[in-house]
Structure formats: C-alpha cells, structure tokens
C-alpha cells in the first residue's frame, strides 16, 4: 500500500524463538550435513545464529565449495499441534548466490533432514507474500529485481501442523524448472540473516483512526557550546546497509544512503474487540486451535521479548509495508467498554 497507509495489520510471529525460550529440552533447530551432498556453514559461522533475531548478523554457507550441494535446515516443533503458515527469510542474498528454497513437513524426522526431503509427508504449495519472484509447489525463488538483491522474503503456506519441518536451499544455475536441480553461484556464498517460522495473526479489524506513527532518531545527542554552536553525535541512524548484501530487514537499497533512518513506531488502539478475539477460551492451558490476540500474539512473543514481523496492511506484498519490530510496552491493557467487548492498545517499535 502506497504511503504506508494503514489497513488491517498482520503479525508474523516466530514459533522457533517461542519454543527455544520455553522448552528446556531444546533441540528445535539444526543443520544436517551427514551427506556429502549437504553443505555446512563457513568456518566460524554458527547455524544457531539464524534464529538470533539479529538479521544483520548473517550466517554464511559454503555454497561455493559445493555448488551442487544442498543446505538442509530442520525444525523440530516437538508436537504436531503447532500451526505453521509462514516462513520468513530475512537479509539473505539468495539471488546473488543463485539459491532457491524448498519447504517440507513431516512426522518423520529423517525425512526433513534428507537431501530433497525425500518421502516427506507434506510438500506445501507455497504462497508468495513478500520478496518472492516465483513459487512452484514447495519451491520458492527470491526476488531478483535488483542485481545485488540482498533480500527479505516472506513465504506463506497452507496452515499445517506437522512436528518436523525442513527448509532446503539449493542452487538454480542450469535448472530446467524451479522444481528441478540446479547449482549455486560459484563465486558468492549464500548468506542469511534470520529465519522465522510460525503462524501469522491478523487483527480482527483495523485500528482506530487515531493511530500515531512516529519516526524517532533516537540515537542523536546534541550539545551546545558556550558560544551557541551546536554539535551533534549520532550513535545509530536506524536501518542500514552494512554492505550491499547485508541490510536491515525490508530495506532494499544497496547502501545506507537509500535507507530511511530513524526508528518507526506505531501507537495503535483496537476498539471493540470481542473477548473471543482478545483472550483464549481457557487461560489454564494453551489451545492451539484458538485464535486470539493473547493466544497467538502477546503470549507467543513473550510480550516485548521476541521480535516479529509487522505490517500495517496484511494484504500488502510490498517491502515498504513491513517492519521487523517488537512490542514497545511491557503490558497489554484490555479495557472492557461493553459486556465482552474490549479495547486493546499496543505500541510497535521497529528493530534493525
């Protein structure tokens, strides 16, 4: 939507970080490298940092060392009840590395670890959302509009509830079709900043008209000399391009000149939400079948603890309308304005 016009917001909430934070047994993510056809990270990198919610901290894979190999990332949700309907790959250079992604799900762990996800139970038909050039079956190709194309990609998929998920990156050079085998670029390694996997949540309706959007250059300190001269020091300006293939989420220009600086924030109020849209049916135990602000949003992010992807218009497919963000408040106030009707206010603050 042009001008970041505000419609019905959508939140892409990461399930991986939720599980990592709540499950003391860990073991939710990994990379399979047991086969010679499988590619590991470059020495000194750690695949765990794909889920650190710091997209500028990229993980580099040794795709140039094995151009016809495969990167097999796996996810173990420990139960087949979690709803998954999106995968976000932030700050990647899939276009430069000639990479595409394949997504599968299964109830058999080994199947999502295997090269090409052989025999995986589910091969979802992917849905293009943001930063996607093409999709075919369970394959997706990243946006290749610009030659540098460090990108940010959100792929949606029909809501599934498998225990195991696999994301495979593989090459595109020489492929006969998007679903066929290809090779990675021989010069540039694949780099990925962050991967989110989980369920998006759409607010029941648009926020009140009195939405306040702010852009805050909060890293600026101005000092004044005795003579009235002012000197300013800035510690950060917000979104940036460290290099042309390492950018803040949803910033697409190849350098920082082209970035909009400052920290964007929204103060929104949603009035007259039904109580069923605010609170879960039961508060004694989670209910994965339920859909509510507290169930799917506030609880899954642990309040302001975990960042998420926010768009002020859930229908938009433009980079421009998306923010990597977190809640700006510690508590979620729900004010009853009529029987079983509540007003909810929330503050969204951008992360870089």
């Amino acid at each position, binding site marked *: 939507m042009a001008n970041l016009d505000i419609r019905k917001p959508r939140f892409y909430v990461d399930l991986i970080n939720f599980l990592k934070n709540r499950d003391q047994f860990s073991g939710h993510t990994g990379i399979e490298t047991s086969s010679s056809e499988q590619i590991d990270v470059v020495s000194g990198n750690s695949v765990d940092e794909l889920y650190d919610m710091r997209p500028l901290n990229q993980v580099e894979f040794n795709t140039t060392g094995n151009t016809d190999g495969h990167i097999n990332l796996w996810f173990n949700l420990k139960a087949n009840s979690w709803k998954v309907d999106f995968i976000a790959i932030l700050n990647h250079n899939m276009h430069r590395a000639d990479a595409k992604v394949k997504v599968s799900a299964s109830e058999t762990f080994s199947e999502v670890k295997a090269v090409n996800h052989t025999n995986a139970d589910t091969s979802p038909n992917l849905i293009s959302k943001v930063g996607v050039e093409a999709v075919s079956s369970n394959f997706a190709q990243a946006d290749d509009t610009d030659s540098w194309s460090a990108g940010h990609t959100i792929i949606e998929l029909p809501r599934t509830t498998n225990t195991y998920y696999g994301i495979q990156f593989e090459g595109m050079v020489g492929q006969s079709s998007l679903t066929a085998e290809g090779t990675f670029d021989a010069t540039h390694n694949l780099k990925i900043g962050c991967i989110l996997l989980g369920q998006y949540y759409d607010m029941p309706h648009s926020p009140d008209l009195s939405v306040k959007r702010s852009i805050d250059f909060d890293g600026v300190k101005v000092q004044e000399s005795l003579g009235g*001269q002012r000197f300013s020091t800035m510690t950060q300006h917000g979104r940036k391009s460290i290099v042309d293939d390492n950018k803040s989420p949803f910033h697409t220009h190849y350098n920082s000149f082209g970035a909009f600086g400052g920290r964007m924030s929204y103060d929104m109020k949603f009035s007259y939400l039904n109580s069923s849209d605010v609170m879960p049916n039961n508060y004694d135990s989670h209910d994965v079948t339920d859909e509510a602000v507290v169930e799917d949003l506030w609880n899954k992010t642990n309040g302001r603890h975990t960042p998420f992807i926010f768009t002020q218009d859930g229908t938009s497919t433009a980079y421009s309308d998306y923010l990597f963000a977190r809640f700006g408040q510690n508590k979620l106030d729900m004010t009853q304005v009529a029987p079983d009707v509540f007003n909810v206010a929330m503050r969204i603050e951008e992360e*870089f």
Partner: protein
Amino acid sequence: MSLTLPSSYESASKNSNIKENWAFQLFNSNSYLSFDGTNDYVDCGTTTGSSAVTISDQGTFAFWIRFPTLVDGQAEAIFVNNVIESSYSGIWISKTGDHKIQAHMMDGSGVGSGDRETFISGTVLQENVWYFIVIASNFNHDDSAVNTNWKIYVNNDASGNVSNSGTASINAPSYTTGKCEFGRVTTGTDDYGKFDIKNFAVWELFLSPDNITAIYNSGNYKSLLYDFGNYDQSTNLKGYWEFNNGEPFMQDLSGNLQNGTINGSVYKGFLPLSTTNTSIDDTFYHGVVTSAGSVRDSIDLENSKAKTSNLSVSISNFNYKGSDISTELLFGTYDYFNYNVRVYSQLNDNSTISNCLQIYQGKLTNISHDDGSISLNIVETKPWDFLSIPIEKTTQKNIYIPISYGNYTKNSATTFASPLFESQLSSKAYRPVPLNKTKSDKILYVDGNNTSNDGLLAVYEKSVDTFVPIENGIASNVETDNAYHNQSDLSQLRSFKQRAESVEVSSNTGITIADAEKAFDGDSNTFANYLVNIEQQEGAVRITLEYDFHSISGKSSDDFKILRDSDNLRVLTAQSRDDDDTTFNIDDATNVTERDVIKVDDEKMIVSSISSNTLTVSRGFDSKKESHDNDTLIRLNNTVTVLGLTYQVDVDKSGDDVGNNTIRTRGDILTGFHSTDISKRTIYTHFSNNTTSATIQIEFDLNEIGSTPPSFDAEFRIYDIFLHTQRVSEEPEEMLYVANDGLSEVYSGSSDLVEHGHEALRDILVRFAGVNTATPDGWSDLHTDRNINNWKIRWWALEPKDIQVILDKITYEFGFIFKFRPDSTSRVVYIKQSSELSASQTLTHHDVKNLSISVSGFNNIITKMIINYEKHPAIKEYISNVTSSNNDVRTKYKIKSEENIKEVKLDMNVGTPATTAQTDPNSDFYSYYNNIIGDVKKLISCEVVNSAKSYSMETGDVIKFDDMPVNPFGHTWSQSGSQYYMITSLQRSIGSVKIKCREVG
C-alpha cells in the same frame, strides 16, 4: 604532539554532526594474526650468529598455522631467522607450491640449490584448516637418514615421509647479520606468505616425541610459555611469539628481545562487539553494547605519573552461536580472561579498521552477568605488570644477578707500600656486589656487567665513609655461574691512611695553639701550630695532645702468612742471625715493604728499610728477640697499624740563639730531641692493631747557658697525624663494591652507556618489560633537555623490585612522564621552558561548554625542599644534600621560615639540584618541580564539544584558550608567562571529550 588521526577519521571529525560507534575486539585463545601474502610481514629485528633464535646445533620449531586459500604452485613464506638480500642465510620455513611444509638450512653463500639443504614434509595440507606443525631436527643433512634426522609433524603425525633436496652438504645453518621475520623472505625478490598463525616457538634442541605430543595438546591451542604435562622445555625456548593477544607488537616471550613490529598483518578471530551493528574489515561487529562507559586518561605532573582508568562495558547477554554469550566468555571453548581488549572509535560507519581511532587497550579481568546483561571490566595493563627485576640468578646459589645503571668512578689504588689518605679515596660512585662463592684462589662477587678494566673491588670503611680498593684486585671480571663476577684474593687485603678524627688538649703549661684541627684537615700542606715565645725562663713547657682515630674494619689480630716471592715460592732466611743483628738477608724481598712486620721463628720484627734482599729490621717487636738459623721460614703479617706523624720544627723563629733548648715529642711517637730546625718530615711507629688513639706530648725544653736564663721562640708544626693500616677480612666480605659502569642501552642500537634517567627508563622497558624499541613520541626533545649532568643516574638493584615501582621512581626523580597511548604507542611528557612552549590547539567559547576555572591551591605548593641525592652505595644515607628555596614565593605568601618545607630523597638522581630555581626548569630536579609546585597554578576544566578539536587531544598536549566569556581570575588568556595549559585529564565517551588542564607556562 597530539594524536595523529587516520585521515578519513580526521576528515569525519571536522564535521560538527557525526555518527560515532565504538567497536570492541575481545581477543581470546582462538585469535590469530593474518598475513595477506601481498605485503604483510612481522619484522623481529636483526639477528647474528650469537642471537638466541639463530640456533645451530639442533632445533625444533612449532606453530599453529592455517592457509585460508591454497593456490597450486604458490609457495608461502612463513619464517626466517637470519635472512639477507644477497644470499641464502639461516633457516627458512615455508609452505611449498604443492602445499607441504618445508624447512631450508642455508649455507650463507649464493642462491642456488647448492647453497641450501631443504627438507620437505610428505603431508599435503588442506585449505582453511588449522594445523599444528613441529619441525624437529639434529640438523644433519645425511640424505640416507633424513627421516631420522628431520621430523616434520603435522598435527602430531610425522608419518609423512620427509624428502631432501639441495646439495649444500651442511650440518648447521650459516649465520651472518640478517633479519628475523615472519611472512616474508627478502632474498632476491621479496616473497610474502598468506597464512594465519597463532604462535611460533623455537628451541635449540631436538624436542622429544613426548614433548611434541604434549604441546599438540590433542589439537587444542595451548601456550608454550610454561611447562605442562610431558612438556618440560619451556625454559629452553630461544624464541616464542603468541599472535593471538592483539598486542601492538609481537613480544618475544622467551625474553630474548627478538620483538616484532607488525607491518600490515591484522588480527582476527577476536569477538567483535560494538554499540551498533557494523562491519569493519569484513568482520561483523555485534551491536550488543548497551553501555560503552568512558575512557579516562590522566597524568599527574606533581608526581610525574600517568594513569588510564579501567573501562566498564555492559553488553546484552545475547545469543552467540547458539548459546548465551556469557557461556562463551568464561569457562567456554576459548579463554578470554587476561586477553587484550581493543576499543576503536568508528566514525560514520567507516568500514576499515585503519580508518578508525583506537581509543583504549586493556585486558579483560572481570565479568559478571545476569540473565539479560553482562558487565565486562577491562583494565589498563602494561607489559611490565607483575614483573620484577632482577630475576636472573646464579645457577649454584640462586643469587640474584644485580642490575645497574650509570657511570661509576673508582678510587686510585692504595697499597701498604703506597698508601693513600682517605681524603684521596674520595669517590663514592660505587655500587654493591654480593658475595657468591670462592673459586680456586679467588672470591667471586656477582657484578652482572662485563668489564675488562673496572672490576676492581673495594671495601667500604664505614667509620671513615670511604671505599678502599682491595690491594690485590683484578681489573677484569669473569663469566661463570650464569653471571659476570668480580674477583678478589682470599685475604681481601687493603691498606690506607686515615687522619685523626679529633684532638683534645689534656694539659698545657704555656704553649700557644693555632689551627689544631689542621693536623687532620685532609690537606697535607696545612698544619697545626704549637708555639712558644718565652723570655728568660728555664725549664720545660709541654702540651699533651690526645688524638682519636676511627676503628677500621677487618681482622685486627695478627695474620701471619708465609712470605712468598713473585713465583709464589716460599721465602726463607738467607743467613743465620744473632738476637742483636739488625740486618737480615732473605731469599727474595720482592713482596716485603718498609714497615711490614715479619716473623722468624717466634720473633716479630719491623722492617725499617730494604736494600735488595737485605732487610734492616727492628728486632723483637712485640715479642722476644732470639737467634735464627739460615733457611728459616719467614711469615708476613697482613694486619699492621702504623702511626704516622708529619711535622716540622723551627727552633729559632726570631733568629735568637737557641742555646741548649730542645724540642721533642714524647708519648706514642718520638721525634727525638731537636735543637736545630727540622724540615717537614714523616716518622712512623707501629701500634698494636686495636689502637684507635694516640697521645703526643710536645715538649719545649729551655735550658740555661751559664747563668743567663734562656729564651725560646720556637714552633712545632703538625701537618698530618694518621694511622696507616693494613687489614684482611676474617671471612669473605658479604658485600664488596665496584665502580664498573652499568648497562649499555639496547633500544636504539647505539650500545651507549646509560647515564641519564630517561635513558634508564627506556632501557628497562625494552630490556626487561618487552616493550618494542619504537621511539616514544617526544623523546627527541626530552633527550635534548635532559642529556646533561644534572639528570644523571646511578642506580642498582640486588633484589627483585616491582618494575612499576622502579619506573615510577625514575619518572619522579627525573621529572618526566611515560605513558602509553590508546593505540599502545608510547609518549614522554614533560614541561618545557616557557619560551619553548607552543599550543597544539586553541579552544574558544565556540568549542567548549561547562568551563570551570580554579587554582591548584595554596596547600599544594612547595616552596622549599631539602633534597637528599646521590644515594650512598653502602648505607641507608645520601652522599649529598642541598636546600633549595623559592624565596620570592615564600615572601609573597608570608611563609614562616620553618613552614612549607619538603624533604626529598633521590635514590637514583645524582645530579646537583639548584638552590634557587633556574629559568629553564629542565636544568635540574629542583628547578623542574619548582616550576610545577613552586607557586599556585591555574586549573581549567571544560567539555570540548567541537570534535574537530577534541578527537585528536590527549593528555600531555599543550593548549591555549582564547575568546572566552570570562578571564581566568586577574589574568587574561594570553597572559605572558602563564598562557599555556597542559591537558592533565581527558575523559572520552561517545560524542564527548572532557578535559582538565593545568597552567604550565
């Protein structure tokens, strides 16, 4: 000279609106130095055949290395220990074009295959993999046993066969004056190596397999500086460098001073953190620093000290490689504690570290964390932290080998045959040397420095405060037991003359006394005078004088030793003698001196004179007389005490007839009757060795001639009265003294004697603290001002002292400050003469805020000093002292005579402080400190908000102020003589520089 900013950093700082980020590099055991293969190298300085690292008999080299890329046919130079441009020299280690480790042993001539023996590992290395390489050899080139003589281990595996090429047929490398370098071979066309390296060790021994397995440490890097497990050769390291600590230069940790200067190579493998996400040199810095703290650098001009504060940094306990970073920093995979932390200021996201300004370097010394955050405590460290000197010991008795600096002056030789007065033994420029042991017929004292001329030892005679050279001293010293030693004979024979200490008149019947003390005033040309001018009186007048002498050290009982000739053969009597004979022929009188006491059989005799081998003796001294047979053994007493009197008699001063009058002395020394004038002469008499006093009665005896009462106008002059002693030591003295000069400097290559305080500091830094030889900023000016006698040093250390304490004392006593800059280069700071000052910056009201003006305060001024200087070598006192005063200031502030006086003790400085301050404060100690604390000084503090001026500032900079909203008290900002200010404190945080300044001229 203020900080030199990287050009792009300086350019950015000129803008009043800048973006600043602080980047932190946390080094750890997995860090390394990276060579680019294009022009990077580390220069470890000049080596010769006598350098520690130029091993010859056998050798082992061990290092952790990685080749990030492998290009077929591309060799990579790793290490050379003696490379020269013209021909093959020393040992080279490199990787071959087919990716194997090889070692060359060069013959020193030519550049062909006939000038080398090359040994190549059979193991092919892989790209981007760390390897632990050990090359161990006895240097035998025998091709038939190459795998026995040369072992090349790759990850503790030597099974890859070693092959040999080259036909030099040598079993040891040839060395000349060359260079020790990493990453470069400069013979012919320069070749560089591309590799990453963590450490490099050299031993001059064929390291055993047990040792090699131990240092491989199952594939985990471990420092080789200390023994562990089966590794027991750390003390035999000839060169050892660790490349993983982010040091500004590569310190040779073996202590052999082959320190390296880094040229282009960059450190990697550190933990990169920053206040915002950024990338520098293609390294991503995690923007997790929530509080960067501030860096405070200060200097104390009053005490000549510099200090940099600790840095406290807070970071988020972020997820790092899958775990909280708190699990990484301590008890994790790698060690971070006590490793370096470098802090850089990055302006406007500049992506190159060379364009960032290093603002701090310290070591991580403490960490605390909770679930969300981590506090890092980074402490400024110096290369000499926890180091003391001396640390070298003798090998047998573990006596510390003294360290000494300065120019020393020995006293002239004094012997029993040619004794000197104590006043002629005036030099106290000696230093103590401790007893080590007796070896053969010598007693050895640990000197520490080599000499061929100045190794003569001296005994300190405390009672007369004199250093008396040992009679049979040896000028050269000897290297044994791990140290240079001075030598004395077994008896430690010494002899000298001491004048009387005092005189008392116990009775006087009419003699006039003039200048009684001139009999012992140290001048043999002045005299005490005893006069009579008596008219027509008969009888004697007398004066009784009691002289006291000091007790002398050493054995006081008889010490008869067999008399030996110059060939060390025993000397016998050459004739039989009766008990009344006064001459005695002996075999050889070479080692007999007048006034010696000899013993034949049981009779002691005093030798009065010697003619050839005939002695004239006074028989029965202190013993009975007896007859002696021919060929009787002669013994010589080494402990002798002789009273000497130098006098003159004038019996007829007025020219009158002296008649029957006589003058004589009675008591302990007898002149005999004199009735005629006697010219100046010296007479002697032997005393027992415990005698410390002498009584003389001068008698003027008037005897009538006929019936006329006599008159007597006469005088008796005493020029000197002294004890001439010879002593030996009962036991070897625990401490003797030597005037062998101190160390020669090692920091510039001149090998000049270190004579001045600032030179001593720099030599200590390089020699003992491992600081590189780079010239500190400001050194040239300091040396120009201080290369004068008033800043000379004499200092020694016999027992370990903390180097920091030593350096603090040097900088105080010699009036300058040594400091490390944030980038670990060094600087010397001192206050120049007012007319020589110039400002590096002039600050106006457009540049600063929070201006504050104060003064140093009356309580902090010192207007008078009692300065004790020239520390005594033997006792806890000072040879000299002076009272220096600033009377103008004392008058101005109405300071009472006994107020505001400070006593100063200078243990190193042997220059002479002025009594009143000189115009040039660098003239001497007092003038320098009077310029700082002799009067109230203005203090200015402010926050410099103009980064164009503030970012290059550092402590020690001299600046000016101008165009301010208020003048400093009654002065203007351009007040002549007090318009310059030195920055004494600088606190830097992101976007802010706060300074404190002190008026300096």
